[in-house]
Each structure stands twice: as structure tokens, then as C-alpha cells.
């Protein structure tokens, strides 16, 4: 299971956000370039279509593949009380043959996207990962070199943390208290709930980016 929230930030403020995150997390940022291939199963593989995502990490010299299955989100009164989305998620590293395997099983390519940005991974009440990336689409199949952003002026911020069914409340509260620190720059919400940009973002970004401007005594 994982807890996840998403938010958006204008591209011009991304650098300020990075500075803020650097200060909050205390770890170095990691560059991110992930080619995400979303596969959907054909109708013969069971009565319900299933979706599987293959993530190829292109940042390293040796691309590494991960397979991820995202399940349904938690519903009910408990789900409404937490401010994060809690959903089942299964992830595993896999060899590069994963794509061929899934094709052989009968999965078909549904869509693919390329995420380019950076991420921070740290512990603050829970193992939190913050990803700031621009989402790019490929006009030609698998042409990762020619990817164009879906929304040029806006990037996606995603905060995730793994959880289990027993610990998700603590993880959710740790995540939401962390997200409060980001409030001057952006608002985070459950995926699917739109937030808009924060009006103080410009000022906050300016203050983060400023180098003081004081006169020497």
C-alpha cells in the first residue's frame, strides 16, 4: 500500500521548490528520468482489465526496470478522514525482459510517458519520497528523445510513502505535516482532486531564490 498526494507547481517556481525541499529533507536530490509504459490486459486475461506499469529508469547508465501495479484506492469513512490517498500498490524490480513478457501474456500498450525531474527520498515520520517532474508525452511510439511536455508551464509534484493497512494513519499524518511546510509554494491533494496554484507562490519563490540583497556594513 502507499499513501500518495499530488500537486502542481509552475515551472518557474521549480527551482525555489528544490531549494525548499533541500532544506527540509536534508538529503541530496536525485535526478529522475523515467520512461513509464502503461500496459493494459486484453479481455482474455480474466474478466476485468488489469493495468500494469513498467518503469524504466533511464538516469543510470544501465537502465533498470521496475514493474508496478496500482490497485484501487481505499474507500469509506476512514478514507475520507485522511487527507492523502491510500491505495494498494505492488512494485518489484524486474529484468529488461519484462516488456516482452507482458506482451507475450497478452498485455497491450495503452500509453506511455516520460518523467523528467528530480526526487528526494528521506525519512520524516515515514519514508517519504517527493518527486518533482515534468510529464512528457511521445508523439511517436517509444521515441523518448522526442518527448514534449504535456503541459509546458506546469510540473507535477508527487509525494508518496509506503504504508500498510495498520500504519497508514501515521504515515498519512506524517505526510500531511510535511506537506504543510510546502504550503507557501503549492498545495497537495489526492490524485484527481484539483488544487490550483497557490497565490503566495510567487512571493515565496522569490524569497527562497533571493540572495539577501543587503548592503555591507
Amino acid at each position, binding site marked *: 500500500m502507499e499513501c500518495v498526494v499530488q500537486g502542481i507547481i509552475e515551472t518557474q517556481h521549480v527551482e525555489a521548490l528544490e531549494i525548499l525541499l533541500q532544506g527540509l529533507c536534508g538529503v541530496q536530490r536525485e535526478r529522475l528520468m523515467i520512461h513509464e509504459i502503461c500496459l493494459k490486459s486484453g479481455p482474455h486475461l480474466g474478466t476485468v482489465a488489469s493495468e500494469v506499469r513498467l518503469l*524504466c529508469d533511464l538516469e543510470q547508465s544501465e537502465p533498470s526496470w521496475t514493474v508496478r501495479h496500482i490497485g484501487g484506492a481505499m474507500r469509506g469513512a476512514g478514507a475520507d478522514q485522511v487527507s492523502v490517498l491510500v491505495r494498494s500498490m505492488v512494485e518489484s524490480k524486474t529484468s529488461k525482459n519484462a516488456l516482452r513478457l507482458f506482451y507475450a501474456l497478452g498485455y*497491450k500498450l495503452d*500509453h506511455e*510517458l516520460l518523467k523528467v525531474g528530480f526526487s528526494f527520498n528521506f525519512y520524516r515520520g515515514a519514508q517519504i519520497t517527493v518527486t518533482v517532474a515534468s510529464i512528457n508525452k511521445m508523439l511517436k511510439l517509444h*521515441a523518448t528523445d522526442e518527448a514534449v511536455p504535456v503541459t509546458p508551464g506546469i510540473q507535477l509534484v508527487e509525494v508518496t510513502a509506503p504504508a500498510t493497512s495498520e500504519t497508514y494513519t501515521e504515515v498519512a499524518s506524517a505526510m500531511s505535516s510535511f506537506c504543510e511546510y510546502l504550503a507557501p509554494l503549492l498545495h497537495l491533494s489526492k490524485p484527481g482532486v484539483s488544487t490550483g496554484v497557490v497565490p503566495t507562490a510567487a512571493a515565496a519563490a522569490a524569497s527562497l531564490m533571493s540572495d539577501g540583497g543587503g548592503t555591507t556594513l
Partner: protein
Amino acid sequence: MKWGSGECGEAEERRMEGEGEGQERLNQAVQQQLNLKQVKSRAESLSKAISRILEDFDVYALTNTTPKWQDILGQYSMVNLELFNIVDDMKKVSKAFIVHPKNVNAENASILPVMLSSKLLPEMETDDTSKRDQLLQGMQNLPIATQIDKLKARLDMIAAACEGAEKVLADTRKAYCFGTRQGPAIAPTLDKGQAAKIHEQENLLRAAVNAGDALRIPGDQRQITTTPPMHLADALPVNEAAQSFPDGSNLFMKNTPMPSNMGGQNSLLQTSGAQLLGRSAASPSAATSTTTFDNTTASPIPYANSPRSSTHMMNTPSPQQQTPQQQQQQPSVQQQQQRQKLMQLPQQQQQQLLAQQQQYRQSAMQGLGQLHGQHQMQFSQPLGHQQFQGRQLPSGHVQHGIGQSQLNQGNQMTRLSQFSGPANSALFSAAQTTPNTQMIPNISGTLSSQSLLPRVQFGLSGNNPQRSHASQMLSDQMFNMGGGNPGGMMPIQQQQQHGSQAFGSMASNAQNLQSGMVTLQNTQQNHPNFSQQRQQNPQ
């Protein structure tokens, strides 16, 4: 120390007041300035405020909530200010008094010597002199007035520097809208148009990430025209061209209206497809099969009857490793993988196999009718391949259900070698080990419209002394395909239909299929299940 001085001072003043009549009275002016009552009330209210804050903290700690820091900071600053004011007022008048301790206890004991002393402690005195020397270093010899002037000048410079720093801080605060302690100034708002645009973009982005909208390439553009990037260069299967949905959503829409009980049929069809891949031969009708088989018998594979033929089959490389050869007829989407498997077979057999498969497919389609057969078959083939590949199939033959009379062992072996794809290589190897026991009755799992006779047809009637009885044949190990469905399968074997045992495995779903299968009930039990050995044949 502040509190201490305040306390002691207060104690002293009170005492003095108490004895005021008898002794010298405080100077009226001093007394007024001191305003003891007011100081007392102020001190009391201050202590109340502080205790309130402390209580709030306790509540926060107990309920484990996060405190609202702005409120607390505000309260703290008020308390701080008040205390400062009180002490300041006290300081103004404290010069008139000296400390005369009434009560010495543990708290006061350490402070009192310092407070009572009129001279600095030795250490403090040396400190003082050293600092003074440092300050007046260059000016010792000059007259005092000059020294004073120089010190004043220094003070002025420092004051000016401090003022400048304060000004810069204030200016910066204004420029960046930090606002005063009361909170931020009016937050700048986006204009409506910009906000709407951003909202739209945001929805687009969120939809793209979570659902993949606006990211799907239409089917006609899904051919890979450029060389794939490095990480996909060997990750993509060869001849991958049609791996994607022509239009994914449409496909699902087409298939979802199908009733759920079709699921069984789907799997059945799949298996029929699988069978096509894996089986030796599928001939839908006796008539046609006769002809085809006649053709095949005319051109046996070299070494068809030798033990090496099966090993040859076994050792064929997997389709992925093969280089694509020229394609056979009837190219269709999803046929490519199948073609790869066929490649190892000689040309004629490939053609025949394909032809048979087509025939079989067509009959299966008719039988089921409602399904979008094309899709089914296409999907099933890869699956079928998957199922067969690498399975540990116990000994068994796939028998071409031609007719009882048409098979003899030699021919059978021929046909098996001819028509089995690589998926059945294990099957053949097993077959090799027990050459005499390989008769598999035809089991046709398709729901064809033809009537299904509840009779098991055996290819080798009487040829095999060990397996002469139908039940024995059925219970032959070769039916254990592994991974089977204990539910009983689709056993069915019709003269017209051909199915390999593989069919049986999928057949469990077929039980709820149509009425045509009703007659199969009997044979279902008898049908060797993949995971069970059939004990007897109720036939």
C-alpha cells in the same frame, strides 16, 4: 537575575512600608514612582498569563495535537513585553534601594553576596580592567576629554551602522511582502483568466499522469518507425508491430458488453487457439481432415519416425531466438508470434498447419458465434503458446482425430512430428519414451454446433494391446497436462472435432457453456483431468 532582583526589591520595599511609620518614610516621589500596588497587580497578571500558556502546552501534549504556533508566539511576545516593562519600571527606582535580605534560603544564597557587594568580584574586576584597557588602548596618554570624545565617536558610528541594518531589513521585508507580525499583507491573487488557464492545464496534467489521457497514440500511428531507444532496443519483441491495441478503449468497449459467462467461452476459445498452436493437428471435419492428412502422409518429415525427430523438435530454439523467416499466408495481427513457432517446420507442414488452424478456427467461431472471434483467436494464440511452452507434459501424443481407421502408430508418429509446434516439444519427448501408449482420444473442446456424441473416439482401436479400452486410454498419463483444472473438462471428443489434451485443461470453464455440451457430462468425468488420473471409465 531579573526576577531575583525584582523579588528581593519587593520584599525589601514591603518591609520598609510595613515599618514605615516607625522609621524613615520613603520619599513620596520615589514611592509614587514605584507604585507598588500597580507593580504587584501587573506581576500577578503576568504570572497568570504565563500559567495559561503553560496549561495550553500541557493540553497539546496530552491530546497530541500540533499547536498553532502563531497564536503561541503571539502570546509569548505579549508576555515578554509585559515583563520587560515591569522590570524596566523597577529598574528606574531600584537605585534608591539597597538589598537587605530578610530571608536567606537556598534560592537566594548564591545571589546574595553578589547583590550585596559594592565592589566587583575579583574576577569580574580583572575582566573589567582588561576590557577597559582594550578600549582605551590608543588613548591612555590623551586627556580625558579627548578620550571621552573618541569613545563617543565610536558609539555614534556603531549606532549609525545598526540603524542602517535595521533600515535594510525593513526595506527588504516590504519588498518581499513578509508583512508584519499581524500576518501577511493582502495576498496577491491571480486574475480570473490566468487562474482558469492554469486550472485547465492542471486537469490536463493530472489526467495524463493518472489515467493516460491525451497520451494515447492512435492505432495507425503506433507502428515503430524510428529506431527504439537504447533501453528498449532489446526489450521489444521482434515483430512487435501489432502489440498495441488498435484503439485500446474501443477494444475494451467492444468486449465489455459480453456477458460474464462468456468468460468461460473466452478461455475455451483461448485454449482452442492454444491448441492450434500446440497440437499436432486440428481438423475440423473428418472430410477435410482426411484430405489434409492424406496430403501430409505423402510428405513426411525427414527422420519423422526416428527418435531424433522429437529431439529435434525439442531442441528447436524458442521463437524469440529465431530470426524471422518469410511469413506464410494469411498474415494477421497476432499471427506473428505464431509464425515464429512455425518457422522450424518445413514449409509444407507450415502451410498445412496454418490451413488447418484456419479451418479449425472458423469452425470454432461458428460454434461460438457470439464472440468476436478474431480477437479471441488472436489473443488466445499467444496465450496458448505460453501455456505450452515449457510445460512438463507427461507422455502423450496429440492425436489427429481423423478417424479411427486412419491411424496406425507409424503414421501417427509421423503426424505428430509434423504438426506439433515447438510448444509441444515436451509432449513429443514424452511421447518418445513410451511409443506404444500414446493414443490420445480426440478431445474436442470446442463448442461447435455439431452434435457432440458422448463417445470417446480412439485413434488406435485395437492396435495397442495395452490400451485397447477406452477408459484405459483416457486414463493414460498423457492426459495429465499439468496445471489442470480438477473440475472436469471438456472432454468431449467428437469425431469431427479435434482437440488436444490441452483443451481439456481449459475446459473447466466450458462446463457452463452451452447446451451442446450437455452430452459431455458423462465424458467429463471420464475425461482425464489434468491433475487427476481417471480411474475408470463409466462408459
